[in-house]
């Protein structure tokens, strides 16, 4: 104690004050350094997370996924894992989304939401048969969203050639406000307004152009009829005028128009049917896209 008193006495009061200030600044700077190391290390997990969240909000999902990935290497968070998977979902990388939503299936507070997103990702993969098989499995189904998954399962029937389930069973999954529209889709899917290729061919064989008219190509049908008839007529008159070359030329042309028209009618019927299918799928897709496939919007 006496030694300490001796040392203190050797310093003047002014020097002591200066020493104390320097000491305070050093301590505070060291502490500040400690605190700010994390703040200024742009690649620290915390900074990666906030930067990833910023990118995610800015819809730069691919870069956000990279940041979340790095964060998840050192920290564990269900919501970040969800965002990581959802980033892939948002950019259409459904296989990656599926793999990552799976990680949240067990012992997670957002298990139901993750399972729903897992099914959504599978749905958007467009392998509808596999999706239906998956929807039948109980072990993956989210308890909270079973109705939604069942609805998705029924929607898949509109998009492929699978045999449609019973109408009552089908309609039961959809809300009352949509019953009429869904019923219309169901009927269109079950009884599509197709044109028969055989009928088109037979009609065109009997009357050139009739097959085309049957498939809705009225202008083409009339043109085919006139072309065939005129070439036939020209062939006859040229033969009558003893112009053998021109006679055979127009005979060839008439035969060309006649056979071409039969082939064209068959093709036209196929195109008509493809158009009906395309328009139907398009209409259904727009209808459900606008309503987000009757699914809740989930994000964390």
């Amino acid at each position, binding site marked *: 104690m006496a030694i300490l008193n001796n040392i203190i006495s050797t310093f003047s009061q002014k020097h002591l*004050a*200066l020493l104390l*200030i320097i000491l305070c600044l050093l301590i505070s700077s060291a502490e500040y350094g400690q605190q700010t190391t994390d703040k*200024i290390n*742009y690649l620290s997990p915390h900074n990666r997370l906030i*930067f990833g969240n910023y990118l995610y909000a800015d819809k730069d999902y691919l870069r956000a996924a990279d940041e979340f990935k790095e964060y998840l290497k050192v920290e564990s968070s269900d919501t970040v894992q969800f965002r990581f998977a959802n980033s892939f979902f948002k950019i259409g990388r459904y296989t990656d989304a599926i793999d990552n939503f799976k990680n949240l299936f067990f012992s997670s507070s957002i298990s139901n939401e993750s399972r729903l997103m897992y099914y959504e990702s599978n749905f958007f993969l467009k392998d509808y048969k596999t999706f239906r098989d998956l929807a039948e499995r109980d072990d993956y189904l989210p308890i909270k969203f079973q109705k939604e998954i069942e609805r998705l399962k029924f929607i898949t029937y509109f998009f492929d050639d699978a045999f449609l389930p019973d109408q009552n069973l089908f309609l039961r999954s959809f809300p009352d406000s949509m019953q009429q529209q869904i019923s219309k889709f169901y009927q269109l899917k079950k009884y599509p307004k197709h044109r028969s290729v055989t009928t088109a061919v037979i009609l065109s064989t009997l009357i050139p152009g009739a097959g085309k008219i049957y498939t809705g190509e009225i202008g083409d049908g009339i043109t085919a009829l006139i072309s065939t008839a005129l070439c036939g007529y*020209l062939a006859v*008159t040229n033969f009558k*005028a003893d112009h053998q070359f021109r006679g055979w030329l127009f005979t060839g042309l008439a035969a060309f128009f006649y056979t071409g028209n039969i082939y064209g009618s068959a093709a036209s019927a196929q195109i008509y049917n493809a158009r009906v299918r395309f328009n139907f799928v398009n209409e259904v897709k727009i209808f459900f896209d606008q309503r987000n496939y009757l699914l809740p919007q989930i994000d964390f």
Partner: protein
Amino acid sequence: MKTKFLIISFYFFIAFVTEGQDLLHSQFEVADNLFNNHQYFDAITEYKRLLFFDSTKTYQYEANYKIGECYKAGAKFDEAIKHFFIAEQSAKNDSLVFDSKVQIIRSNILRRTTDRAFQLLDELEKDEKFKDRIDEINYWRGWTFMFADDWKVAARAFAKINYNSELRILADQTEKAKVSVTFAKVISYILPGAGSIYTGKILSGLMSIAWNLAAGYWTVNAFTESRVFDGFVIGELVWLRFYRGSIKNAEQFAIEKNIDVANKSLRFLQNEYKGIKP
């Protein structure tokens, strides 16, 4: 005593501030390295990280400008223009504003939105601040005209900078190598097939002449033999079909040839031209 205290406090303050600045600068260098190595995706991430943590907005111009360049290199022109625009807004002097605007023009040229490029070039030209950079304005105007497929005016724009410039000569040669669509059609009206021959499709032109001669003969022959209906039908279905066909062909061939000529010049510019490109 007071002075000593002030000096020490100032030292610590400067130490804190410069440490932050150094880190930002290091981050900028990291991003620049990626940019220089053409790793544009990663470069954008790092520039964006820099912008996110740069609360003083020190690198607002540089980072956005580079992000724009990265997006442009990846042909994401909408995104590129967005970032060049932000760079322009945060530019510290007129020269940097000009550079950003020129980058927006170059992106518009590549995006083929040449009308917008012309509009921006007009704005630059009218601006008194950029009077000394008129050559650059003319240079990009020339490029815009080339991408708008107006090689004649492009040559004029390059001639304002240097009459003997490579680009002026190329634009002139391209213009001369092109054929007139109207002329091809007009000569096809007079002699069916002539338009096709003019555009270099000799066989097609000769075939067209032969078909028209044959169909014309059959039509006239039918009329002379008093087969009036035959004459009308052959004339309408065969002769007129080939006559109209030869005109349409000539027009189509001329358009195709002009596209080929322009594409050849654009390929040269892309692969062999050594000067600054959009």
